[in-house]
């Protein structure tokens, strides 16, 4: 266990003097909880989405299996297990088999770094004591924290891409080329808005980011200005291939996109990964911008204080729920974007805005760090605004020139 001791601050658990059954029990419990949350959460999410969409479309939705149709997903999943597993003749068998796992495993691993609870009130750093061991309510708290999530979301691109390619058929290939172009494009905006949060928090570790948001005015939603939050939300929806950005699946044009040729349990893995990503990315959004398990004081009281140590978890669940509902709402109301609209939004709107905002925040941070105040601070702010206005005008001029050139060449769009 030598190497574990040398990893600094990965988890206070690993720095304990004696290493006996308690740390192992705590780690085993955490792994189990994260695994179960992933699966049960996904099951619930599928039901939740079907039920809410049904409500919005004036239907009943699943209502036969179990109370309120809650067991419908379980029934569907069991059915998928027993379906015949087809591999198309033209498929590349090896890549075809590993692609679902490349989509599924990253979706699970994101849960490892999200703080699922813990006591962050009154300046506590979120550690709890279980079996006499000090630990955090998250599977791992590596020093690179959020970068792990980015790494996982970039690995998830492989799942989609290879699934489409290895199917050996044209609709999946078109779907996967679209999907990977979309995911790579929006990853830039996602990363830039994330960088704004990391700069304000001054740390990469997720528990550090949560501790930095000790009151509602410190929530990164407000302390970074609303802009990174909005950009992150849109880019995240595109990363997840959720409506209105579900061009990847586009039933009417692509017969379902990259997973057209998949059946049985392999299809179920893609399905599971997609819904699990919705939940885990919502949890990440809450962690980054809305304080994660931090309570919201309504009139000076924490309404979940009665739950004691589970108060943080209750807050996290409540906040995540709000976003899950929002995603279902998006799906029920917004029409799908056209492909050129998608690319325009990503490259010409979201990336410039998030980059400009990031530079603005960096300038203000430097000003604050070097203790300028009063008139000089307002001069800096004015300078930043002038710079942004200039950059915006240059950008618009460049777009106009590009449009004119396209028209001159007789492009169709």
């Amino acid at each position, binding site marked *: *266990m*030598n*190497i*574990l001791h*040398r*990893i*600094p*601050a990965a988890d206070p658990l690993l720095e304990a003097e004696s290493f006996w059954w308690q740390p192992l029990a705590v780690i085993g419990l955490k792994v189990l909880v994260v695994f179960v949350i992933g699966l049960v959460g996904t099951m619930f999410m599928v039901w939740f989405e079907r039920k809410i969409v049904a409500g919005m479309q004036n239907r009943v939705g699943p209502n036969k299996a179990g109370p309120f149709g809650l067991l419908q997903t379980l029934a569907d999943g069991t059915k998928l297990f027993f379906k015949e597993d087809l591999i198309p003749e033209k498929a*590349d068998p*090896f*890549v075809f088999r590993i692609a679902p796992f490349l989509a599924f495993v990253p979706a699970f691993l994101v849960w490892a770094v999200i703080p699922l609870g813990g006591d962050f009130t009154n300046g506590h750093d979120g550690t709890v004591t279980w079996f006499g061991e000090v630990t955090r309510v998250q599977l791992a708290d*590596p*020093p*690179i924290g959020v*970068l*792990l999530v*980015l*790494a996982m979301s*970039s*690995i998830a*691109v*492989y799942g989609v*891409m*290879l699934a489409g*390619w*290895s199917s050996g058929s044209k609709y999946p*290939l078109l779907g*996967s*080329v679209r999907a*990977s*172009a979309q995911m*790579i494009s929006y*990853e830039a905006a996602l990363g830039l808005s994330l960088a704004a949060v990391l700069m304000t928090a001054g*740390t*990469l*570790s997720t528990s550090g980011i949560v501790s930095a948001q000790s009151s509602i005015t410190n929530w990164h939603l407000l302390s970074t200005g609303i802009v990174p939050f909005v950009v992150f939300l849109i880019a995240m929806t595109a990363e997840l291939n959720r409506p209105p950005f579900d061009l990847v699946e586009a039933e009417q044009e692509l017969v379902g996109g990259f997973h057209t040729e998949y059946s049985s349990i392999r299809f179920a893995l893609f399905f599971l990964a997609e819904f699990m990503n919705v939940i885990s990315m919502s949890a990440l959004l809450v962690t980054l911008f809305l304080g994660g398990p931090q309570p919201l004081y309504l009139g000076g009281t924490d309404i979940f204080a009665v739950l004691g140590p589970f108060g943080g978890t209750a807050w996290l669940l409540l906040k995540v729920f709000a976003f899950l509902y929002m995603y279902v709402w998006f799906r029920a109301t917004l029409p799908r974007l056209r492909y050129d609209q998608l690319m325009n939004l990503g490259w010409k709107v979201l990336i410039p805005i998030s980059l400009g905002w990031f530079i603005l925040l960096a300038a203000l941070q430097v000003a604050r760090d070097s203790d300028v105040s009063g008139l000089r601070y307002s001069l800096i702010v004015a300078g930043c605004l002038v710079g942004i206005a200039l950059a915006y005008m240059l950008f618009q001029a460049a777009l106009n020139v590009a449009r004119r050139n396209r028209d001159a*060449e*007789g492009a169709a769009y």
Partner: protein
Amino acid sequence: MELLVFVLASAMVLAGAIGVIACNNPVHAALGLVLTLFGIAVHFVSMEAHFLAAVQVIVYAGAIVVLFLFVIMLLGVDRAEDLSVEPFQIQRPLAVIVGVAISGLVIAAVVRGRSTLGEQLESGVPGDDNIRELARSLFSDNVFAFELTSVLLIVAVVGTVVLTRRQRGGASK
């Protein structure tokens, strides 16, 4: 424990590298490259360079190889190529010479660096601080080289766009 991690990661790196060379199918070769990059990331983690490990996965595995795959898919060269045709007669002997030269350089660097590397490792800062150290060195000591690299990349991108667009314009006229 450390030895076990080293052996496993090295096995990943070597298996991936052999896969890149031995696979006939370009997509399989690209996947071999991903395996190699992951092995190197594991090596970085075991040497406490967490940030480098994350960047390795995000940039190399997540962006560059994805781009490779993208090009392979778009160009449709995902079938085994005929290796008997050789456009440049000299390129195989040249590849052998360059390969031997590069491996010689790497071995020489390791042999020479063994004495000095130990001292630098002792003075190194562990863990979360290595992001701070990296940033300080990039944006203060080596800022000139850093900025020049970014200019180089921009020039490359603009050059590519200009070259491809000119061709298309000429064709339409």
